[in-house]
């Protein structure tokens, strides 16, 4: 996809770093440190969009890069931290698994992701590594959604999934038209605000945000 060999090397290095950061997110137990690594990952994603913009000479990807930086590295994580603090939620995220076991399982999921990628692309293709990493991010996000008992942890899982999808889109198709990108950003931001608002209300009603207490509606 990219003709410049130096940018190609750099992109693969970025992909590796993003995968590493996904593991760090999964292995953390405190919201603040999860979000720190999530921010770092979003910065790398923005950098990736920026390099793609230059390599493909697509100006609109610059806007994508900027929005990623502003919304995902700054606004959304800050919103989550603030709501968590204000509502007085506990710092430690309640999880179903020990962090070490979670990271081992996450490794297995990443392996699965690359197996899937091989059925989609040849391992020799330029974008093989980054597509594999993006699917790993997606699966790890889903994994967090399942193993996290708290609403904030589940939100981080959802955001990690979103980052995976964004990376996937960039790597595979070179980005969507601008108005679609803007629409997707809008949905992600409004979704995050709504989720934060809901968790705030749940904290107010139940005095905890673990979804264990949300067990009323079962047949």
């Amino acid at each position, binding site marked *: 996809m990219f003709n410049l060999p130096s940018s190609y090397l750099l992109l693969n290095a970025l992909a590796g770093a993003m995968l590493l950061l996904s593991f760090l997110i999964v292995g953390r137990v405190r919201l603040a440190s999860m979000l720190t690594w999530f921010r770092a990952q979003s910065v790398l994603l923005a950098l990736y969009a920026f390099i793609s913009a230059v390599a493909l000479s697509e100006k609109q990807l610059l806007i994508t890069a900027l929005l990623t930086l502003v919304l995902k590295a700054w606004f959304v994580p800050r919103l989550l931290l603030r709501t968590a603090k204000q509502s007085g939620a506990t710092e430690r995220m309640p999880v179903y698994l020990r962090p070490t076991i979670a990271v081992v399982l996450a490794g297995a999921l990443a392996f699965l992701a690359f197996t899937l990628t091989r*059925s*989609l692309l040849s391992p020799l293709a330029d974008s093989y590594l980054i597509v594999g990493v993006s699917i790993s991010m*997606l699966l790890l996000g*889903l994994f967090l*959604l399942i193993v996290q008992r708290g*609403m904030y942890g*589940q939100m981080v899982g*959802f955001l990690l*999934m*979103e980052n995976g*999808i964004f990376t*996937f*889109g960039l790597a*595979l*198709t*070179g*980005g*969507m*038209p601008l*108005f*679609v990108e803007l*629409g*997707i950003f*809008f*949905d992600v931001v*409004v*979704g995050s605000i*709504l*989720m934060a608002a*809901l*968790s705030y*209300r*749940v904290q107010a*009603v*139940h005095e905890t945000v673990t*979804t264990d207490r*949300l*067990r*009323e*509606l079962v*047949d």
Partner: protein
Amino acid sequence: MLLSLLLLVSVLAGLSVFLASQERTLHRIVLTGSTLVGILALFVGISALPTTPHLFGGGWWYVDPFAALLIILIGFIQWTATLTSIPYLHEEMHEGVVTWAQARMYYLLLQLFVFSMLLTVISNNIGLMWVALEGTTLATTLLVAFYTREGSLEAAWKYILICSVGITLGILGLLLVVYASQQGGLSIGHALTWTALGAAASTFPPALMRWAFVFIFIGYGAKVGLVPMHTWLPDAHGRTPSPISAMLSGVLLNVALFAILRYKSLVDASLGSAVWTQRFFLFFGALSFLLPIAFVIIQRNYKRLLAYSSIEHMGLIVFAIGLGAPGMIAAVIHIVGHALAKSLLFFGTGNILLRWKSTKIEHVGAVMQVLPRTGTLFLLGVLALLALPPSPLFLSEYLIVSAAFAHHPVLILVLLLGGVLIFGGMINLLMPLLYTKREGVESPVSSEPWNLSHTAMTLHVLALIGVGVFCLTPFARTLIADMVSYLL
């Protein structure tokens, strides 16, 4: 032009709530806005119904006859839902359950919900359609959490999380379709449209399109409420204010299904046959029809009962689509019949809930005696939902059974048996609700004045009879057959 106007009017109808300073003006403004949206939608929909698929608004909007049908349903049901909301919210505000600010928010979100559904249905751009479909989830999340009770928050959390994750998987499918189209020689800027994709779909690599369809079906299927991605649905539809439940169950599920159908025709064109995708529809349709039976029979909450019935009906519709063209004709009729009957019933539950303050079946009794008007209309809705002629559901279910017998005789017998169980279960639960005077249940005796909700329910009964009779005419047969031919 008219389509863009329709979108604009629905946004303005939502925003105009901020002009109101007291309840009377609020309701007048809301009613005017909703009526305008309804008239425009009916006009646009009916004029596009008997034609070939058309591009509008400089290529931004793409309306085929099935989309036109959905525009009509959205337009009509948002109007009757608004009619029902007016007495419903009036009573809730009178009792102090709902504040003035909440009521305004309610109508704003209602129209934003309508706007995003309309945008989903008419978008020619697949990315814009995705954004709009996620918009329907976002617009309704706060409506699900409208009553700040424990259960409502739980329902809203499940709703936004499962539907957003579903739709995120959907975008993975969307990106794979775009990638496949690039492999087929389309450039991204110009070829993100249904029209361009549809024209070139036979050149897309089948392996990629298969992967794409799996993600689309799972992701958007969660929003249709297909088993096993359905767990959010009974909670969300059960906890929402009743007029909104009516729109969620009656219209939104079909809008999500519409999105899957658009992708289905692309995948079929790429694979060269519909057999592969039909297997998905048959399997998940049958599963979604059969699994809710257990929950219908043991149900103790009448709103959840209706919600499970929606899963089961969507299952039947999806199953019918898996049967190919004859089944799809049945599916179209079933969509209309189910939308009208289910929303009628949810309107009725609003009145019942206001009177008895409980959604538990055991807390309610002798509705016929206490609320004779609601009770009678509710009974007619139940009969229509259980497919008694002249309900359109009778015709559609008859067509499904006869279409399925040729190729899947065993499966359809199992489904028929399931249908009998559901029929019995619904009668067993709802008839006592309507007729039995329960001991220990206070049945306040007072007259029930006619209000707008009864007008709305009556309109639905008339529409059901009208559609049921209309579908028997030869004109309707060619109309629906044409509609289906563009979906294949």
